[in-house]
């Protein structure tokens, strides 16, 4: 929600003091702008901030990358934010684990806004995972660990520990 937009703004090096509101039951963030009625929605505001900071590469460079970033931002706001049950979380971790099997970042080989917002969105989930679960979703863990060490991303959020050697090699 609003908190992660503040984190993002700081990461992007934007000046402090951007004010956000929230709207509706789901507490959708709203950004007041000088011209017009303001912007609504996490994805929308995040993309707007990225463009303001002139870091457009974070939205992808080619058309394909841009669409993929869009896709994962949408996944973040619909599935990650929409899911509440333990099963939803498991499904998300499984999905991501498959997707990240052969990729460094969500959009392939470039670091994008999708990685940042997915990291913020999953932080509370990853904090609670057991050592065994982290090992089970190995690709997610590798990606998450990578992103949390990306300069400026983690900020005050707790560092989630990942063990380098595998403990559960016998587990099926």
């Amino acid at each position: 929600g609003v908190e992660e937009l503040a984190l993002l703004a700081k990461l992007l090096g934007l000046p402090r003091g951007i004010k956000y509101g929230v709207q509706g039951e789901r507490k959708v963030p709203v950004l007041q702008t000088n011209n017009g009625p303001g912007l609504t929605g996490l994805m929308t505001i995040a993309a707007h901030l990225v463009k303001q900071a002139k870091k457009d590469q974070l939205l992808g460079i080619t058309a394909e990358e841009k669409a993929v970033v869009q896709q994962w931002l949408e996944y973040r706001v619909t599935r990650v934010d929409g899911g509440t049950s333990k099963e939803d979380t498991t499904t998300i971790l499984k999905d991501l684990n498959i997707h990240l099997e052969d990729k460094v970042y969500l959009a392939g080989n470039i670091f994008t806004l999708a990685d940042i917002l997915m990291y913020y969105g999953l932080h509370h989930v990853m904090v609670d995972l057991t050592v065994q679960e982290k090992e089970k979703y190995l690709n997610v863990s590798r990606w998450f660990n990578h992103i949390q060490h990306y300069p400026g991303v983690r900020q005050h959020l707790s560092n989630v520990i990942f063990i380098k050697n595998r403990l559960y090699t016998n587990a099926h």
Partner: protein
Amino acid sequence: MRLRVAPGGPAALKVLAAAGAAAAPVRLVWGDPLERPLASLSPPWVPALELDSGTVLFSPNAICQFFFLARGEEPTDLTNQWLEWEATELQPAASAALYAQLVHGKKGQETVEALGQLLDHIEQNLTRRGTAYLAGDTKSVADVVVWGALFPVLQDETSLPSELQALRTWFQSMTLSEACRKAADSVLMPKALLEFKSYLQKHPPPCLATEKATSNEPESSPQEEDGSEHALTEEEITAAVDAWARGVAALPKPWRPQKPVLPVEGMRNVLITSALPYVNNVPHLGNIIGCVLSADTFARYCRLRNWNTLYVCGTDEYGTATETKAMEEGLTPQEICNKYNAIHAEIYRWFDISFDYFGRTTTSHQTTIAQDIFQRLLARGFLLQDTVEQLRCEDCQRFLADRFVEGICPFCNYEEARGDQCDKCGKLINAVELKNPQCKLCRGIPVVKTTQHLFLDLPKLEERLEAWLEQSFATGDWTANARYITRSWIRDGLKPRCITRDLKWGTPVPLDGFRDKVFYVWFDAPIGYLSITANYTDQWERWWKNPQQVELYNFMAKDNVPFHSVIFPSSLLGADDNYTLVNHLIATEYLNYEDGKFSKSRGVGVFGDMAKDTGIPADIWRFYLLYLRPEGQDSAFSWSDLMLKNNSELLNNLGNFINRAGMFVCKFFGGTVPNMVLTLDDKRLLARVTLELRQYHQLLEKVRIRDALRCILSISRHGNQYIQVNEPWKRIKGDEKDRQRAGTVTGVAVNMASMLAVMLQPYMPSVSLAIQEQLRIPPDCFILSHNFTCTLPAGHCVGTVSPLFQKLENDQVEALRKRFGGGQTEDLAVEPQAKQTHPAPATLMAPGDPQLIQELTEKVAKQGNYVRQLKANKAEKAQVDTEVATLLELKKQLLLAEGKSPEVPLFKGKRKK
């Protein structure tokens, strides 16, 4: 690039419209959504775009965005905002509205009203900006995406409230644009819509709202689609009406066999067994659905078909595990068996398993029959004698079974390898090859002794076995996994198998030189089917030595297949006494618990004896287990899914229909079934129900128990729709014609309920009985034919009608989930203890000390292996618990050492300021 879309899927609309509007050069592939999902991360019916790079886009909005990007139209804040709003707000509501229209048959007007606020939002944006399109004066990706979500629900602008003028104008101009019109024509063809509808009908609404696929949903087969949605022919309708009119007279008289049940000349004689549960384990839900419950459902079905049916089962009681258990509990093996046999019998009684006889293997018949088979094998030269080197513990005065030895693995030097397999490298081990072997009971050092054993000469029997298998495969219904496992055994080549053991608790070997030995349990156990039948009737041979008249069904989980398809048939073929061999081998896959395995030692999962303590009736358990029977693939038990299925399928669908049908008879017609004057619509319904009934038979005859259950739910869905469309509660207040219509609809509905009671009997016997009593269905109607006939004619009096099912509440189910564990029990169980005993180290340890982490990591790994080994060896619970506690404590220390836990309170502290 290739765009794969499914005809009828609403999301196909926007991507096709976007491809058209942006003139994207796509190759269109129409996929069959029922075959497989188009992209791995998305459910069927969602389009996928495969780019030339190999990337697959599975989000419809991202696909639309890509088409516009490829044409050079960059997204703006405004288009982004519309796309996000569509994905998070509009799409879920539109999907729900579409579901209500297609499945519940809600009128278009009602569902459009449900979208009210969202439509207002579009209207306001259009008027405030004063633009022709959502994001400006030209058409953008936003327009296509929003239009694509609305069109399947609205169809045309006239269904929009007239005050939403700007929205109406925009919607109309979109609909008239060439790209949108073409997309609508190709996607929303009437036939494709029907297919989509039938897909929706098989899924509860929540799945659609979140668009997620679950593994517990069956893969619908093309056959099923034909059954529910093929166009009815005149002949089918006429035949259904004729059958209906013939009434009870058309039904065969139910066959009530004399007891004991024996094969009858000229009848179909069905002998059903379910794998014998091992006596000293309390069965869990997976065991129950794997054999006894599946076999029970099928046995009940067979009886309703008037097939002469015998269903036997019992506990498998001989073997090392019983001996050890007896030593632990200070009882004799027989006393242990008596105790646990009673526990098993009680559990199956609670689950309403209709055994004709539930016996056990420790009987004198077992000895007689097993020894007879042995003698015949010996006389015919199918037994070999050989010396075996085996470990013997002189302290314990016994030869050690593999599971009672451990030592150093000869392959990888792992220190705690088991006698049969190394947990570390996974290699199979011959116990005598272990370095430094130890007796697990007394920790003494066993010595290698040679001992004589008898072997079943499988290579010599292979030819007969293969000839028989070929014929049984060709004529019987073997599940795919059973065929596969059997073939791979044969392909790998058969070797002689040892059939004797140096034990006391077993069937004695009747041969000089072997009199202190017993039969190995896998040789002995399947003979239990015969001896249990012999305890039921002294004429047991009429079932078991009568392949000409008897058809044998074996039910089991897949791990039991080789014993039933290769080894036991080999014994019987070798004994050469005209034995009845398995005709149909029905094996299930595994049922998991939530996301893991059932585990007695960790207290995870629901075990047979606990099910009744949940307060959930046995029939609900039966329904849910059969609903997710691991047929063809593994499935997983989930508490929230249990609640969902109970509330959506049983309460809202099946229970609702049967209750309404009965209530209408009581409330509007004084408890007497009214006169019925069938219209063409009613006749169509009769034909539709008949098709479902035939499908049910087709599936059950192939023992596709789970799939057949869907037919029952499908019929009640048709019934609900029928009542909804005809509104008898309104018509009853109308003129004579309306009242007659209300009577017909009520009469047809209550007769559907009557047939459902019979179809449901194999699955939910108590509920079936309750319906029978409520509607006073004559006992002679409790028979399954291939036709839907009028069993409750005009004038029939029903009894008192009351609801059949209760809603399961979230709190109740959450409490049960907590009680029975679900992935997190380890942490829950141990945390308080760890906090009490080790408060100090948490703060004293320097977080991140690599040496400490290394040390602890190794300890955790070692202890983990030890615990797994204990569990694998079925060690005593108390011992396992202690070791698990140690393991968890180590893990905890490891986490602390890594600085994980101390950081959490720190973080919280910061935020409080």
